[in-house]
C-alpha cells in the first residue's frame, strides 16, 4: 500500500511557501485586489525565492524540483490568495513550460532564464472570443512569408499577457490544411511586436489582482524561427501541457478550499449568536466538517494525479478527475464559508468574500467542468454517435 506522506524537502517547501503567503501576501493582497492592480512586488519576491523555477532543472536556471513541488506551492499560495497563485501557475505551466518542453536550444536560451527566475512572464493564447472549449476551432492564422510568419486574429482571456514584465505570448494559429483538417501550430510573439495589440484589462468577477487581456494581431510579423515545436503539432502539444496544467489548477483549487476551512474554524470560535459561539451549533459544525472532507478528498485526487505524472504513467483521466472534484470543492466551500461569515462574508475586506469571487473561474478555466467530464467519459470508452 502506498501512502501520501511528503518527502522532507517537499514538506520544507510547503512550510516555506505557507510562511511566505502568510507574511508577504496576506497583509497586502486585499488592497491590490480592490484596486484591480497587478502585485509586481509580490511577484518579484516569489521570483527571488525561486517559485517560478520550481519544476525546472538547474541547467536552465531552475530549482531542480518537480511538478509536484509547484503544486504544493500553488496550494499554499491559494490558501491565502488565488490571484498570485494563478500568476505563478500560468507563468510556469503556460508561459515557461511549453518553451522548456518544445523549444529549440536557441529559444530556450533566449527566453527561459528570465521566465524561470520570475523576472519576466510568458503567456499562452489558445482561447478566442469565438470559443475556448473547442480549441480545434481556432481562427487565428499564421501565414508563412519567406523567413517570417504573418499572424492575424484575436485571442480572449489571456492570463499574464499584458503586465509590464510580460515578454512573450505563445499563440496557437492555423498554419495550413492537411487532408481537409486544419493544421494548428504554436508561435512565439514577443511583447511589443508591431501589429500585436494588447487591450486594457478585463473587469473580472474574481482573480482581480491577476492580469487577463484580449490580444489582437493585425499582420503581425515574427521570424520563422519563432515557431514553437513542430509545424502543425501546436494543438496536440498544447493538449499535453494542459493535462499537467489541470493538476496544477487542482492544487490551486484545493488551496482555496482549505483557506475556506482555515477562515471558518477561526471565525466560528469568535462569533456569537443566540448566546453561543456559532461554532457550537451543529449546523455550522457539519458545514465545516463537509468542507474539510471535500478538501481532503480533492487533495488526495491531485496527489494521485501528480504521482502518476511523475512516474510517467498515463494520468489524463486522473488529472481530469482531480480538476473536476477540486474546483467543485472550492466552489462549494467558498459558498458555505461565505454563508458562515454571514454579512461579513459578503464584504470584500474579508478573505472569504475574495474566495467566493475567485472560486467560480476554477470550474471554467483550463477546461470547464463539462470538458473534464467529457475527458473522463471518453477515457472510459464512451463515444458519441456522430463521431
Amino acid at each position: 500500500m502506498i501512502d501520501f506522506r511528503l518527502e522532507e524537502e517537499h514538506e520544507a517547501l510547503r512550510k516555506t511557501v505557507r510562511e511566505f503567503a502568510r507574511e508577504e501576501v496576506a497583509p497586502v493582497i486585499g488592497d491590490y485586489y480592490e484596486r484591480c492592480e497587478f502585485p509586481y512586488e509580490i511577484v518579484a519576491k516569489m521570483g527571488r525565492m525561486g517559485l517560478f523555477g520550481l519544476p525546472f532543472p538547474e541547467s536552465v536556471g531552475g530549482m531542480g524540483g518537480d511538478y509536484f513541488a509547484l503544486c504544493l506551492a500553488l496550494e499554499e499560495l491559494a490558501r491565502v490568495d488565488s490571484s498570485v497563485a494563478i500568476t505563478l501557475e500560468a507563468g510556469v505551466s503556460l508561459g515557461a513550460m511549453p518553451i522548456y518542453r518544445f523549444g529549440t536550444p536557441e529559444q530556450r536560451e533566449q527566453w527561459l532564464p528570465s521566465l524561470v527566475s520570475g523576472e519576466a512572464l510568458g503567456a499562452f493564447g489558445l482561447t478566442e472570443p469565438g470559443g475556448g472549449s473547442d480549441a480545434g476551432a481556432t481562427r487565428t492564422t499564421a501565414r508563412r512569408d519567406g523567413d517570417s510568419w504573418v499572424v492575424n486574429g484575436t485571442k480572449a482571456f489571456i492570463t499574464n499577457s499584458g503586465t509590464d514584465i510580460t515578454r512573450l505570448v505563445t499563440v496557437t494559429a492555423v498554419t495550413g490544411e492537411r487532408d481537409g483538417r486544419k493544421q494548428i501550430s504554436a508561435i512565439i510573439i514577443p511583447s511589443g511586436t508591431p501589429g500585436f495589440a494588447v487591450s486594457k484589462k478585463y473587469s473580472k468577477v474574481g482573480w482581480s489582482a491577476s492580469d487577463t487581456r484580449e490580444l489582437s494581431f493585425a499582420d503581425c510579423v515574427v521570424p520563422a524561427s519563432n515557431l514553437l515545436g513542430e509545424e502543425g503539432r501546436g494543438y496536440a502539444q498544447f493538449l499535453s501541457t494542459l493535462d499537467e496544467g489541470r493538476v496544477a489548477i487542482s492544487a490551486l483549487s484545493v488551496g482555496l478550499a482549505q483557506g475556506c476551512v482555515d477562515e471558518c474554524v477561526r471565525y466560528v470560535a469568535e462569533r456569537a449568536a443566540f448566546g453561543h459561539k456559532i461554532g457550537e451549533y451543529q449546523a455550522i459544525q457539519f458545514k465545516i466538517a463537509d468542507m474539510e472532507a471535500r478538501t481532503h478528498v480533492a487533495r488526495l485526487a491531485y496527489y494521485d494525479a501528480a504521482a502518476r505524472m511523475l512516474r510517467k504513467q498515463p494520468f489524463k483521466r486522473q488529472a481530469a478527475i482531480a480538476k473536476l472534484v477540486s474546483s467543485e470543492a472550492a466552489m462549494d466551500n467558498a459558498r458555505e464559508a461565505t454563508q458562515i461569515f454571514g454579512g461579513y462574508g459578503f464584504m470584500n475586506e474579508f478573505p472569504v468574500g475574495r474566495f467566493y469571487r475567485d472560486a467560480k473561474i476554477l470550474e471554467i478555466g483550463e477546461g470547464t467542468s463539462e470538458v473534464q467530464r467529457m475527458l473522463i467519459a471518453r477515457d472510459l470508452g464512451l463515444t458519441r454517435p456522430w463521431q
Partner: protein
Amino acid sequence: MPNIVVLVKQVPDTYSERKLASADHTLDRASADAVLDEINERAVEEALQIKEAQGGEVTVLTVGPERATDAIRKALSMGADKAVHVSDESLHGADIIQTAKVLAKAIGTVEGYDLIIAGNESTDGVGGAIPAMLAELLGLPQLTHARKVEIDGTSVKVERETDAGRTFLEAALPAVISVGEKINDPRYPSFKGIMAAKKKPVTTLTIADLGIDASEVGLANAASQVLESAPKPPRAAGQQITDEGDGGSKIAEYLVSQKLI
C-alpha cells in the same frame, strides 16, 4: 574572507499559542510549533550578505533540544554552510548564564572565526543579554543593536540603534555583534537551498564534548528560579464613549485617567 558564526535559537511560533509547562515553569515545547526565531533569520541573512560580497564561510550554532535541528535546517536552506548543534538532556531549564557559557565553549570548536552574529533579543526569552555575556566570556568587543554592519579584513563598523538614538561604533575583529529588526529583510529559502541543506554538515555535540559537567547546568543549577507563572489576563471589554458634544473631552479624560497623556 570572513569566517562567521551565527547564533540561532528555535522558539515557539508567535502565530501559535505559547505557554509554560505547569510542572516546572519551563517552556511547554509540545504546545506550539517551533520555528527559527525571526531575529535570527535576520542574523543569518546578514552573514549571507557579507559572504556573498566577500566570500568566507557561515556556520550556524544553536544550543537547544533535538528538534532544534529544524531551525538549523532552515538556516542551512537559506544558505549557511555548516552547523554546530549542542544538544544535551541535562540542559533542560538552563538559564541565560549557563547558555552563554555553553555557547562560548561551542564557539571554541569553530576554527578561526572572525565575527559572531546574534539577534539582539529572542522572541521567547527576551533576555537580550546573551550577546553581551558571550563577548565578556570570550574577551571580545561587543557591538549590539546593529542596524547596519560593514566589515573589512580586520575591523567591523556598526550603526547601533536604540530608543535613545544612534551611535556609530568600530572594533577590531574578531568581535560579537547583535542585530536588530531593521538590519535587513531575510530571504525565504528556495527549493534548491532546501535540497542543498540536506547535504550540509551538522556537528552534534553534548556538553561532555565541550568539557562541561552536567552538575553545572540545567534547571536545578540555574542562578534564578521561576516560582510562579500566570497567563496574561484576558483583555477587558473596551469602554464606549458616546459623543454628545463632549466626546473629545471624555476621551481626553479617559486618557488622563490611564496616565497616557
